[in-house]
């Protein structure tokens, strides 16, 4: 397909997305941009130390204030965006790929393969992830982003796999899949060309959800110190804030700005998923139709409205 028409289709697809998804994508893009150029525009060295003993409030020189040792919070955040975002996206990609493979395999193959794969993913699902991560990462000698991403991916796929399996299972015996087999298509082609394209929405939602999980979990891990403290990410900043008793000292800028950044990043992902949900399930769409009928809210037990010509105001 020519690149331009692909681009136009992409643009048209974006245009059709619900507003929530558009806002979410815009915020996420901003974070990705910062992840790319952040280290280049950081005004200070994030590791810079001064001999000051108290955190400094935001001022003209340090827009977001400084830590107890004089580190510039803004610079720490600009530098720390990249690892946070990359970790989220990479984990999301790997875990989603795993969940697609396991989910479609279990759903399409059925039988014992399904039993075993489902059992396996459900067991991982019910085990409390964070303590397990802490234990595993606690043993690793050089805890860093790579190790965190690997372990997060290894533990983060079952939810998506479950959803995709259920969908595959319901589609596997749909007539169009049987018909493709009837025509003589091979299983791999059926999976790739008949089943998966019908699950794009689900896979996208699963990806976004996994990225959110990865970011929140990695930040939480860093916050409790299970990370490489020699690099920067939002969790590390918060770890130092907690260690430096930022709350007790009233140094709100130390934890509020990085915390808000995480919240904003998470929010963008939640918004994207809201949008994807609405797209795939029209029932969830906010009832714009109701405004047309002249009501804001509606309960299922209400009788059918009667609106005769010229009576619109009567409601």
């Amino acid at each position: 397909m020519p690149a331009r028409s692909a681009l136009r289709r992409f643009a048209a697809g974006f245009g059709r997305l619900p507003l929530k998804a558009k806002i979410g994508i815009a915020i996420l893009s901003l974070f990705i941009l910062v992840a790319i150029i952040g280290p280049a525009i950081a005004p200070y060295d994030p590791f810079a130390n001064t001999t000051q003993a108290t955190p400094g409030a935001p001022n003209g020189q340090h827009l977001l204030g400084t830590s107890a040792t004089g580190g510039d919070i803004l610079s720490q955040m600009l530098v720390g965006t990249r690892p946070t975002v990359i970790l989220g996206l990479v984990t999301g990609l790997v875990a989603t790929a795993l969940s697609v493979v396991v989910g479609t395999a279990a759903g399409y193959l059925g039988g014992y393969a399904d039993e075993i794969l489902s059992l396996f993913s459900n067991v991982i699902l019910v085990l409390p992830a964070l303590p397990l991560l802490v234990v595993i990462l606690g043993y690793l000698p050089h805890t860093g982003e790579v190790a965190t991403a690997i372990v997060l991916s290894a533990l983060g796929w079952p939810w998506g796999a479950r959803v995709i399996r259920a969908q595959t299972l319901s589609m596997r015996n749909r007539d169009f899949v049987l018909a493709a087999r009837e025509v003589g298509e091979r299983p791999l082609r059926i999976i790739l060309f008949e089943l998966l394209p019908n699950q794009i929405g689900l896979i996208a939602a699963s990806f976004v959800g996994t990225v959110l999980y990865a970011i929140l979990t990695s930040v939480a891990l860093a916050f409790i110190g299970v990370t490489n403290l020699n690099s920067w990410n939002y969790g590390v900043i918060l770890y130092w804030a907690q260690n430096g008793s930022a709350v007790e000292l009233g140094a709100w800028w130390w934890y509020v700005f990085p915390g808000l950044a995480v919240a904003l990043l998470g929010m963008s992902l939640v918004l994207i998923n809201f949008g994807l949900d609405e797209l795939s399930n029209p029932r969830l769409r906010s009832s714009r139709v109701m405004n047309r009928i002249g009501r804001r809210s509606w309960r299922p037990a209400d009788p059918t409205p009667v609106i005769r010509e010229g009576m619109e105001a009567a409601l």
Partner: protein
Amino acid sequence: MSTPDALPSATATPVLEISGLDIAYRSEAGEVRAVRGVDLDLHPGKIVGLAGESGCGKSTLAYGAVRLLRPPAIVTGGSVVYRGRRLSAGHPDGFDVLAAGDAELRRLRWREIAIVFQSAMNALNPVLRISEQLLDGIRAHLEISDEQARDRARELIEMVGIKPERLNAYPHELSGGMRQRVMIAMALAVEPEVVIMDEPTTGLDVVVQKEILRETMALKDQLGFAVLFITHDLSLLLEIADRVVVMYAGQVVESAPTSAVRHGGIHPYTRGLLGSFPRLRGPRVQLTGIPGTPPDLRGELPGCPFHARCAFAQDACLQIDMRVQAVNGAEPGQLSACPFVAPGQPLPEGAVTSGSKLTVPAEGDAQPSGELVLSGQGLRKDYRGGRRGEVVSAVKGVDLELHRGRVVALVGESGSGKSTIAKLLSGQERLTGGEILLDGKQIDPSTRSHFRAYKKDVQMVFQDPFASLNPLHTVRYHLQRALKLHGARTGRGHAVADVERLLEQVSLTPTTKFRDAYPHELSGGQRQRVSIARALAAEPRVLLADEPVSMLDVSIRLEILDLISELRSRYQLAILYITHDIASARYFADEILVMHHGEIVERGPAEQLVQNPTHPYTQLLIASSPDPDTFAVQEDAPEPGHQVDGVGKEGPGR
């Protein structure tokens, strides 16, 4: 309760009076006016049958009249007045349903107007016991003691022929027929004066359908309620209704006493519908069906909405006012919306019929038998299922032979094993026993090594045209893949020309219009044609058609059957037609096999088998099938209501 008088009482006050009702669905894309100025009266003890195809507005009308529709549906005009005896004191002019508030409507609902919902739908709450669902309806309307309510529930459930112990069951523990009986018991729980029945037997097997209808009729005679019976199956109405109302595109096109409709109806649409049902009696004639598709209900429809599909259409059709009225030569009480066509007026010369010419072999079944292509001997299929893993035999030793140029129909109810045969013969499932022979050579189509070669000869058409095409691929993609996979072996190129050729074969012309369409842009009939074209891509010798028309509207079923029949003649295809509808089998097949509980109980030339069935099951099946010509005058109904243990009894819900 008054006993209904024998004569149609057009003068008596109706118990429910709908006049000029307008209902619309408001959406972003515009307003769909689903019901347009409909008048309808219900009288005590009478059944009004409301017929029409999907999307004609019949259900919208019924639910809208009791204000059960949810937004975006709104009532935009007309009136609905209820005049039940119980309410006559408080409402001397009748109860204005459209003006009633929430609380008032709650008193009207069930107590006065009850609804029997479609059986295929899950109308029972899956987490409540049957008894609780019966009781809450009773308690909501009657001030009676717990004891009395329970007695009433027991009485009701016995009335519809279910043992009182089953009151403790959950819905999923009952069969489809039983669930429908429970629904009827629920509807009659507080003795309503009007009962709306929305496709109450659709999805049930004919034998069960017959039983339930018979019981319902008996209850109606006993209790004297008025019935609005909604169905797409006009032939069913001819058996049970007192008056038939036919709807098309949201409007009533004909309203007539049932006897008048039985004699043919006046409105061209009614006549088209009547002509869409294959008969069980009389000569096997070419039927017409109705060509074309219903109009878009957005916006105005000037004049008669049917004119685009009408054989009698003329310019004046676009000017008429759609009001049913008496027509010259009609029977008393017979009203038609078409002022131009008189009763019995023959079709004009050169009228558009459903495309193909007479393709069904006219008389007898003396079709010269072509060579034997595919046969099954002692076919068996066991499933390991059931609660304790016991083996269930779906097919217990079936022999069948498919010859070129012949149609064999496999007729049976759901669960008879007929679809399993299709799966075995198409290689989707593995045989437990017996063998499949292609050209006299044994083959196991379910094995990977044989499957592809086998598909070259044996192709399948699926039941649901809405599910059998991938919504993400175009028509061209579907056909090209099939061509590529099979054509590679025969060395044919020119895929584009081949796609055109396939589309022409199934009369999807002009091909440019359909080539690049996505499935959702096509109607059900068009999709089924694409499905057939895809099967033809392999140039097979055998076509397995598993209920190819049961999901389609009645008026287009014949088109598809005729198409398959035409292809059979043109390419000398051997066809296995699997259906629950013995009348369509008679219409279309050379030989009929009747299947029951995994076995063929009777087989023979189509006409001979239908006219002189020998096996009791075949006789029951034929007697239960609704047929416009044989309405239920033969009221052989024994004691109504206690027939659950008949042959039509189903197993427990799956």
